[in-house]
């Protein structure tokens, strides 16, 4: 298992290779990319900033939770920081497991949890020159929509 916040371009192929083991029968690769439209706005690019130390530890916690729940250590997750262009990968999650059901579920868990918990922020730049901080849909008024008392 390995996780990291990365300043340069992500290489999904390298993550696939990293989780490859003969014991595994299924590998799920998730790649999140910068989309050209967000909530009706034409996006030209974005900047990710992070609470560096906490982002590293939170990403590692999420991967550890998935590793424990689905019983595989063949998990690698990388998240970008810095400036990204349209189409560039912002996050790559590789999960390998003996069976596909568990691989899909663990991959889904990791992306959904990091969207709620990873302390990184996105400033979108728009085609008309404006820029704004935007939050994930999982967030509402600065809080998780789920019960915040659980933390």
């Amino acid at each position, binding site marked *: 298992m390995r996780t990291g916040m990365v300043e340069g371009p992500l290489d999904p192929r390298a993550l696939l290779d990293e989780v490859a083991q003969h014991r595994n029968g299924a590998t799920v690769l998730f790649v999140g990319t910068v989309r050209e439209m967000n909530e009706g706005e034409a996006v030209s690019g974005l900047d990710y900033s992070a609470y560096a130390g906490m982002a590293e530890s939170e990403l590692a916690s999420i991967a550890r939770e998935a590793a424990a729940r689905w019983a595989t250590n063949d998990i690698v997750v990388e998240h970008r920081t810095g400036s990204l262009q349209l189409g560039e990968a912002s996050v790559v999650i590789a999960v390998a497991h003996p069976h596909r059901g568990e691989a899909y579920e663990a991959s889904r868990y990791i992306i959904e949890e990091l969207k709620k918990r990873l302390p990184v*922020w996105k400033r979108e730049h728009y085609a008309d020159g404006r820029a704004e901080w935007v939050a994930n849909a999982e*967030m509402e008024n*600065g*809080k998780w929509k789920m019960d915040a*008392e659980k933390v």
Partner: protein
Amino acid sequence: MTVRVLLFASYADALGASEVALEMPAGTLVRDVLARVKSLAAGKRIPDRPLVAVNQRYAREDQAVTASDEVAIIPPVAGG
């Protein structure tokens, strides 16, 4: 005691600083630190109950804060 509070993204923009140092009494809780930050000029732009981390872990409002703690107010996150 002096408590360091880290600010990020939209909250740092709102307060015009990425870090503030606050003089707080002993026995301070997370919610007391939040109330003090919100009393600063432009602090009203931070929501009433934002996410807070103490020493890089999400914390509850009733968690105690000591002088050596790193407190951070976490804006709505946008990873992925």
